[in-house]
């Protein structure tokens, strides 16, 4: 679809600078986070964690803990595993059993062994220190590359192997393309175990309502199918689990999936007849929360011609999911939807391998596997450029899908909806002042310094869908990932929109009110948006997968359009004309040929609610509409060649950071960061800008600082913010952005996703910049994070090699 720069001019509210609906409560300290929700008689949990990466539990003595005044209960895995069903895994791995507390064996240092319940957290922590656990320490499987060795300790002995999933997918003539290509090359790219690490840890409180037989849950949650999994584990009907979706979630970016915490307190509150809550402390969160991210080794071969045409790729990804996989291994699946990025690669072979280790469990992280994968592909095209001695940007341009080629289908069977990649790259280069950057880099180099310009693109799939899960687990044959919105207009004309999921910073209330206001031509600031609880709500899949602008926004459009049609129909009936003769403007309606014949918004609302005798035949009283949206372009299972249309929408970004490296210390300073983005029609510019800049900052962290480091014997070495480094306002530079708009033909207003792209592009862009800076030394680094000490070592080694070379 051609870019229409002016198309948003027609909107009243969409794409316009408008204050958000959410911020007022946060700036006054009136957010309602899970730790702010208090219940009468609430009990508090402290956790006893395993000090061993792998050990048999010989015995647990809880008597001293129980004897402490104020302690109500001490729960062990033996009791809990009998009373509940195992937690859900995405793969079909029945012998990998996961419970909130260790059963018989601990599988990572930090795994929860017992839960102590007391009147206060202080007393619970005191009692936790009195729980005596006798362990038989065992050797652990730690090094990702060796956990599949025959003699490696087994994380789940009943599974018989540390390999959870291993399959190879081939799309297109890979062998032929490799044979015909002028050149091939290979490389390894490494993405470290990091995560999103929100400032609010995970927390949940639960209360059993015996009179109604309902489990009430308040949680800092962002998770599809959360009520279903609670119901399944606890053996409660789904309509007996009420998740309160009006809890503000203090950041998530994918990871707030505390199902084990929830089952734990869900069980305890029924058992004890009192509300129970667990709020992770920071160590609980980082060591025991099962919230680590992908940990991947990519071994890649590329086939290409002398003119830079990238023909084929063949690669293996090993992903270390830790001890309890949950849904995490499916993160090997989603990248299939954009496996070759914005490039016209003809064929792909993908060997995907998910392995267990004695480390904290992995969880979905922003992009669901796409950030490591994009780092891998963007690293690859830089290798091709270096091999051929071509400019890194020129080679990308030669391979990018052209704007007239959309919809473009990549080898895996997914078609991209729209885009104008060259235009976005042009804007990024203009914003960066590319030629001046080159001059600046050369000036620094001329003085013996190390400076580099980074460049990376990324495709951001948006809209979500489960269909790819089928490729990793043939028992999963799910073809929808729907979202819904209900809008009601009351007898006085006020509008209320109802969504059915939590929000963790994405601004859904602003999204829904802006779109509903646009469609109905009513002031969004007067539209109330509420979060219904899970029993009341329409089908929802939570705000994951860059999907809410597309799916919740689309259903808000759908519901509002139905209401607009109803109002026109009521007005036409009362004005005695057909609906074709009606003009709708700002909610008031008149006869086009005779504007004096008019009904106001309030008048129509009154008729709908109070004057049934004035309603057209067949209409129900009131003004309410529901829209449940199927994923656009979705709904079809993979074909026999594993080709499948996954996500509906594909956003695009180009990032250009400029860095300087201190040759003595290896310290990277980002002097400048420019990026251009195209996520179709922007609903709220401030929100999109924040998402993109914040995502890029998150990616800078993954590129330079963040890693859950483990010792060789399996101890987590980064369990606090002193060791796990989140970037501050010192490390994150001013990030400047420029927008481009290629509307999606698949969505209600042309919108696409924007929540993940910054995080997908920045790691590759920073790596590109660092490697450009290191290039005069004849060395490069393809292993993230690019930490100061590692860069310093590489510089030192390169210089040593260079000075000793002449003598050799």
């Amino acid at each position, binding site marked *: 679809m051609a870019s229409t720069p002016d198309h948003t001019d027609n909107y009243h509210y969409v794409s316009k600078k408008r204050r958000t609906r959410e911020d007022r409560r946060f*700036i006054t300290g009136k957010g309602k986070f899970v730790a702010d929700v208090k219940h009468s008689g609430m009990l508090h949990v402290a956790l006893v964690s395993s000090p061993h990466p792998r050990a048999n539990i010989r015995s647990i003595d809880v008597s001293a803990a129980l004897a402490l005044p104020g302690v109500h209960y001490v729960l062990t895995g033996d009791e809990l595993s009998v009373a509940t069903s195992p937690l859900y895994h995405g793969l079909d791995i029945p012998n990998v059993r996961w419970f909130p507390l260790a059963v018989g064996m601990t599988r990572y240092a930090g795994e929860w062994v017992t839960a102590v319940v007391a009147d206060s957290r202080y007393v619970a922590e005191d009692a936790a220190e009195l729980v005596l656990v006798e362990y038989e320490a065992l050797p652990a499987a730690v090094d990702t590359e060796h956990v599949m060795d025959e003699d490696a300790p087994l994380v789940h002995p009943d599974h018989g192997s540390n390999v959870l999933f291993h399959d190879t997918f081939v799309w297109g003539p890979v062998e032929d393309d490799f044979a015909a290509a002028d050149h091939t090359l290979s490389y390894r790219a490494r993405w470290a175990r990091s995560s999103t690490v929100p400032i609010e840890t995970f927390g949940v409180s639960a209360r059993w309502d015996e009179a109604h037989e309902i489990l009430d849950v308040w949680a800092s949650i962002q998770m599809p199918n959360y009520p279903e999994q609670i119901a399944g584990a606890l053996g409660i009907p789904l309509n007996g689990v009420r998740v309160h979706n009006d809890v503000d979630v203090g950041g998530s970016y994918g990871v707030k999936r505390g199902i084990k915490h929830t089952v734990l307190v869900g069980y305890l509150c029924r058992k004890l007849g009192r509300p129970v809550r667990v709020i992770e402390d920071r160590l609980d969160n980082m060591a025991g929360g099962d919230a680590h991210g992908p940990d991947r080794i990519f071994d890649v071969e590329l086939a290409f011609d002398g003119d830079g045409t990238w023909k084929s790729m063949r690669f293996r990804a090993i992903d270390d999911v830790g001890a309890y996989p949950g849904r995490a291994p499916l993160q090997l699946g989603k990248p299939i939807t954009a496996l070759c990025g914005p490039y016209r690669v003809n064929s792909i072979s993908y060997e995907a391998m998910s392995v267990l280790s004695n480390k904290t469990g992995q969880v979905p992280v922003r992009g669901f596997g796409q950030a490591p994968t994009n780092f891998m592909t963007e690293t690859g095209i830089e290798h091709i450029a270096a091999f051929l001695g071509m400019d890194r940007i020129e080679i990308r341009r030669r391979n990018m899908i052209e704007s007239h080629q959309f919809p473009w289908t990549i080898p895996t069977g997914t078609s991209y909806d729209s885009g104008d990649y060259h235009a976005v790259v042009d804007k990024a280069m203009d914003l960066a002042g590319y030629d001046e950057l080159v001059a600046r880099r050369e000036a620094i180099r001329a003085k013996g310094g190390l400076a580099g310009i980074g460049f990376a693109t990324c495709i951001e799939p948006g809209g979500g869908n489960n269909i790819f899960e089928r490729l990793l687990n043939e028992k999963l044959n799910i073809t929808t990932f729907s979202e819904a919105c209900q809008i009601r207009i009351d007898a006085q004309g006020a509008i209320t929109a109802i969504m059915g999921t939590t929000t963790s910073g994405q601004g859904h209330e602003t999204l829904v009110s802006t779109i509903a206001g646009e469609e109905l031509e009513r002031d969004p600031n007067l539209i109330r948006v509420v979060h219904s609880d899970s029993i009341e709500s329409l089908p929802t899949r939570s705000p994951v997968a860059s999907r809410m602008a597309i799916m919740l926004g689309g259903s808000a459009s759908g519901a509002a359009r139905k209401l607009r049609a109803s109002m026109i129909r009521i007005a036409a009936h009362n004005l005695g004309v057909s609906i074709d003769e009606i003009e709708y403007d700002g909610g008031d309606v008149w006869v086009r040929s005779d504007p004096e014949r008019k009904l106001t918004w309030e008048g129509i609302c009154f008729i709908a609610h109070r004057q049934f005798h004035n309603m057209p035949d067949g209409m129900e009283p009131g003004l309410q509409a529901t829209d449940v949206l199927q994923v656009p372009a979705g709904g079809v299972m993979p074909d026999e060649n594993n080709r499948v249309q996954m996500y509906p929408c594909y956003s695009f970004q180009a990032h250009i950071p400029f860095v300087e490296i201190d040759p003595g210390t290896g310290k990277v300073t980002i002097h400048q960061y420019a990026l251009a983005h195209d996520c179709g029609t922007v609903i709220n510019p401030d929100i999109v800008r924040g998402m993109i800049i914040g995502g890029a900052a998150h990616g800078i962290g993954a590129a330079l600082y963040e890693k859950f480091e483990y010792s060789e014997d399996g101890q987590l070495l980064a369990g606090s913010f002193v060791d796990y480094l989140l970037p501050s306002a010192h490390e994150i530079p001013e990030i400047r952005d420029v927008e481009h708009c290629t509307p999606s033909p698949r969505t209600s207003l042309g919108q696409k996703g924007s929540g993940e792209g910054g995080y997908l592009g920045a790691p590759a862009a920073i790596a590109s910049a660092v490697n450009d800076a290191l290039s005069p030394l004849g060395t490069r680094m393809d292993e993230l994070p690019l930490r100061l000490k590692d860069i310093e070592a590489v510089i030192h080694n390169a210089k040593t090699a260079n000075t000793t070379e002449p003598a050799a």
Partner: protein
Amino acid sequence: MTKTEIKFTINGRSHVGEAPPRMTLVDYLRDELNLTGTHAGCEHGVCGACTIRFDGEPVRACLMFAVQADGHDVSTVEGLVNEDGSLSVLQDSFWETHAMQCGYCTPGMLMTASALLDENPGPSTEEIRDAISGNLCRCTGYQQIVEAIELAAKRTGERD
């Protein structure tokens, strides 16, 4: 556990209460005074989510005991609004630039920024970044927060 009587000023009002000696100030504010705008993030003094002002200085409420507040002046995000309940210039500037997403770090960020502007009403961009570098935000990448503080300084006429 025995409790100790404490008297201090909270958001301009005098308060008398009692706290166990080991209770942290952040827990006291949240659980005893129901001032839940102050958030616990790391509880080891790094993230800054619990930042309050203590005799005017921005400090970590997770690293203090409640009993240490005895005789001092404490203010929290709930005390930032003007006397008539309207938003302060700083709060309004955070809203105007959308200087937050999830809102969890926001109260701490506001308290740090308010201390900065009291001491240095016309800070440079570099001084703003320096001042908030002890407050971690995982959502925004800091850009719109910096812009909010710049805007607040401009609105009070102390910065061009």
